[in-house]
């Protein structure tokens, strides 16, 4: 090979590796898909199959059973009290935290997150220690004929505790990203505080608010550990839907247990779909502001 030839025959440029070889890509995707299928899809399919194992009529009977309906009603009541409470708190907390700088701000944010770090069993337990018959305020409550533990108030309190941070956690970063120019402009132009809140702030945060409410509601309806501690598990009286599933399962009424569980699966899937739709709107409202 002459020198000239050698100079002309340029070696092909070495392929610069910016992704993995095709077989690696396939293995990674395959491992992920198999893992999710085995851990999530197969178990869910098993629940739905077991729920329908005795036919559609048995399924309909199981979910329209009076005890199941009472459990559904109690679940809805608990969520209907806990979610608005945490919604109002979330708005107040995010206004204070995202719009003002004060000492102890970081600590306050950590304290708001606290219920997420606490085991659900401990969340229920603190209310038993406080209001139970051997608890700090228990005897006093008994003298006045009030029941908190093994009754609706206990279930509502435990549900409120475990869903406490959801709205606030959604709103604080959103309001920080959006900034406060519009609100300040409204104030300068003579709006009252309430007008500013209703006409400027609320429209700006509404999708974030809704996202937080969906998270909060889904968790409120599905909470098990905390509610299990404070409810006496009196069938149909102090059992929510998840507790009712456990009662039926322990009584070997498997088909009925799975039928009620399938309702909770549907609620979970609905919340997931709602979250995906709303998340896109939240992103847009975050970008519009910046």
């Amino acid at each position: 090979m002459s020198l000239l030839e050698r100079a002309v025959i340029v070696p092909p440029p070495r392929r610069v590796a910016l992704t993995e070889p095709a077989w690696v890509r396939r293995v990674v995707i395959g491992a992920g898909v198999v893992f999710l299928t085995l851990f999530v899809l197969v178990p869910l399919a098993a629940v739905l199959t077991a729920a329908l194992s005795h036919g559609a009529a048995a399924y309909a009977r199981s979910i329209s059973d009076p005890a199941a309906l009472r459990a559904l009603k109690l679940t809805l009541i608990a969520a209907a009290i806990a979610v608005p409470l945490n919604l109002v708190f979330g708005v107040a907390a995010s206004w204070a935290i995202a719009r003002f700088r004060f000492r102890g701000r970081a600590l306050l944010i950590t304290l708001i997150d606290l219920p997420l770090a606490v085991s659900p069993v401990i969340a229920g337990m603190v209310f038993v220690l406080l209001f139970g018959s051997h608890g700090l305020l228990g005897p006093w409550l008994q003298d006045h004929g009030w029941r908190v533990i093994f009754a609706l108030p206990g279930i509502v309190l435990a549900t409120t505790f475990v869903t406490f941070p959801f709205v606030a956690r959604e709103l604080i970063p959103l309001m920080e990203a959006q900034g406060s120019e519009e609100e300040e402009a409204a104030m300068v132009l003579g709006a009252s505080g309430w007008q500013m809140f209703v006409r400027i702030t609320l429209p700006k945060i509404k999708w974030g608010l809704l996202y937080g409410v969906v998270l909060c509601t889904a968790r409120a309806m599905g909470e098990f550990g905390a509610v299990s501690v404070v409810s006496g598990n009196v069938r149909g009286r102090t059992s929510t839907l998840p507790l009712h599933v456990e009662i039926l399962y322990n009584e070997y009424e498997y088909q009925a247990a799975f039928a009620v569980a399938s309702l909770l699966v549907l609620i979970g899937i609905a919340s997931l779909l709602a979250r995906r739709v709303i998340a896109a709107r939240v992103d847009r409202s975050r970008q519009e502001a910046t």
Partner: protein
Amino acid sequence: MVRRSALPGFGLSMGYTLVYLSLIVLIPLATLAIKTAELSWGELWTLATSDRALASYRITFGASLIAATINVVFGTLLAWALVRYRFRGKGLIDAIVDMPFALPTAVSGLALTTVLAPTGWIGRFLEPLGITAVFSPLGITLALVFIGLPFVVRTVQPVLEELEPELEEAAAVLGATRWQTLGRVIFPALAPAILTGFALAFARAIGEYGSVVFIAGNKQYETEITPLLIMSRLEEYDYPGATALALVMLLVSFAMLLAINGLGAWTRRRAGHL
């Protein structure tokens, strides 16, 4: 204290926040401190380190540690596939990752127990191999893998999305093989996020109750997790016993919360440098 602001409502919103936080969270949690103060150090130590308690810590923390580690492996793989690769059904896979968050824990526990039981869809293939996946520490670990799954994916995914391709291009142009780029450029950038995901999954796992009780079988000393032991102490009206155990759990949870906050700051710093 408060920087002067043109905006109204600080007093009202702050006051409401503090009152509500105290009523729902702080005062109830303080009850635990009051109940603890009723015990002497000796009593507390005896209750928190009984044989049954120690066995429950071993199971709870051991299974949580293994589960969080499994989540790191599959969570990072999934996040990688979702951000870097295009494949059919990607949107669906992305949605399914959130399923363990969206499902009530009791339903998750019931579902896993059903498929892993010796007659279940997956369990029937495990039984001939001599693997018992229900009423065993393995079952507890699998349930904890399930509920911890989204944490690693959802912490690694955004960091991976923000990673600038220029860095990898530079590494590749300078002659690095793909493995070298992965190991020396991408992994260090992802490490804080992976560790945060691990900590979140672990913190969630140690307190988990609903998804574990169905699959654990709840045999004392063998498959009894600490939250369940607290539950049985409460049912026996053994409040001191429950309090001592809860205190141990809470201390670990607070340590995890602090670690996670610190890791979050590290993640942001790392991302800022890049």
